[in-house]
């Protein structure tokens, strides 16, 4: 399977109908941030330079996979509301997440993601590196 490198730690995985990425991170927090950046690349967002302030997301779920789906779903919702998150910071404690980011107005985006799915989602730590696959419904 030939993967297309989107970022240094985000690879696009071929998928017949939808979209999938493999994401790496030196920490869980970095994995979550890279996953968000990968998703934003798939959406192909054009945003304005004008910062409209900081926002915060607080989430609590039963496990890290649920937390990742919930986190990315929140970002998807922000994009639908025409707000682009930048300089994303993530703190994870147990199965709780706190994320802060700057928001910029979105001019347009080229692709719609219907949802973040649990399909093939499995956060693993291999050789000190966190990794997972994420499949999006397009």
């Amino acid at each position, binding site marked *: 399977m030939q993967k297309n490198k989107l970022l240094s730690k985000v690879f696009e995985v071929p998928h017949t109908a939808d979209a999938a990425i493999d994401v790496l991170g030196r920490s869980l927090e970095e994995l979550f941030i890279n996953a968000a950046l990968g998703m934003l690349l798939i959406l192909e967002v054009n945003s304005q330079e004008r910062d409209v302030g900081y926002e915060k997301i607080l989430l609590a779920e039963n496990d890290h996979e649920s937390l990742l789906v919930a986190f990315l779903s929140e970002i998807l919702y922000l994009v639908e509301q025409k707000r682009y998150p930048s300089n994303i910071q993530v703190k994870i404690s147990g199965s709780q997440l706190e994320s802060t980011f700057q928001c910029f107005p979105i001019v347009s985006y080229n692709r719609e993601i219907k949802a973040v799915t649990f399909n093939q989602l499995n956060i693993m730590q291999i050789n000190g590196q966190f990794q997972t696959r994420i499949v999006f*419904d397009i």
Partner: protein
Amino acid sequence: MNINDFRQISEYEWEIKRGFQSGMRVPVIVFADVQMLHESMKDTSLQQAINAAHLPGVVKNVCVMPDVHQGYGFPIGGVAATSLDNGVISPGAIGYDINCGVRLMASQIEYTEAKPFIEEIINKINSLCPSGVGKGGRLKLTKNEIEEVCATGVRWALRNGFATNDDIAFIEDRGCIDGANPSMISSRAIQRGMPQLGSLGSGNHFIEIDIVDKIENKEAAAILGLKKGCLVLQIHTGSRGLGHQVCSDYVKSFQHVAGKYRFNLPDRELVCAPLDSREGKNYLSAMCCAANFAFTNRQLLAFYSRRAFEEILSKIPGSFNLYTVYDLAHNIGKIENHEISGKGQTVCVHRKGATRAYGPGHNDLPGKYKEIGQPVLIPGSMGTHSWVMLGTNQAAQKSFSSCSHGAGRVMSRSQARKRFRGEKVRERLYEEGIFIRAGSMAGLSEEAPQVYKDVDRVVRCVVGANLASKVARLKPIAVIKG
């Protein structure tokens, strides 16, 4: 997998036996010719069907349609029925775009007369029916109005002047599935639905003007109002952000439910709840809300398309009426009665990228169609034919009265972008006599005709397996892609 893993039942039916993988509760039946079977082994779609055969309470067999391709848990083109007594309902096996489906509208407008106006008509539809990424509808509804849409479906459109009784008569479930309870959907789902009713969306959603270019069953075509050389319109869309949110909410909350009921599933996207549990009933009720929203969404697009035809064609004499032939769901869970092992049983039929296909005589069909069976709509790509077919009584025995929903993708979106340029796709289709209006050229390249299977081949399999019979073939002349 390889061909030796299948038992051939007929030229178009193949079985993966229950014992193929541990945990399978039923076999998988694949409807395909040998070439399509080989092609379906190139991605994970058949493994996803095998995973679906693990669902608790699944009965008889999981079915895989000829247009199958890889999904995100359950295959696109998959059908699984679960027992109402001890079975489950799985939101992921229905999909995020709940009641994504197709509306077919027909007319007595001769293409030869309307030809000079086709570009104007498609431009008018394009201006009245918002499409593309992030685009909402013309109406901005309140929370209460969205709840009313969810609870009453197309009857809301009728009360507000956007539908006729004739439209309602020819929509699956008359445009409103009973049991919808808006209190079962989240405030975010409602909020996302408020600006989106009457919008097409993006991806593979479309509005398409076609010509009826071949009639295969004259009597049935006459009953459906399909006349050779006349214009018809297809609308393909679903429940937009409201439906996506409903599915996301329940897939998330069911992650906890799976543990509670000790379900052992091969994929977390297949999480489910017993149909007779509080969680299962709540989801079913929420799903009905999203399905009713989707029926109403297609109704509004039909209303504005009808208006476009009337406005533009009023310049020439004749009737410009567009009447609803049928409107059907292809991502849905339906409570239906089926014969299993010689006995009638009530089941929840999960159809993910599959269309209901009732045969002649079924009680749920509109009176006009009772003798011929349910219209089945199989759209091709924007450059190829679509088919109007009829459900058969054999489909009741073989596939829980289900059939293919389209051509089915064969190429990934990123590969399509590398291989095709949107501008070139549009140019080539224009040379073939097809006007294209698209939200973005990148999106158009992802939907190039070459990324889909040969729809005629899919239809040949469907007919060969006796799941549906041909009525008419449609040729595209103008397409709006989201």
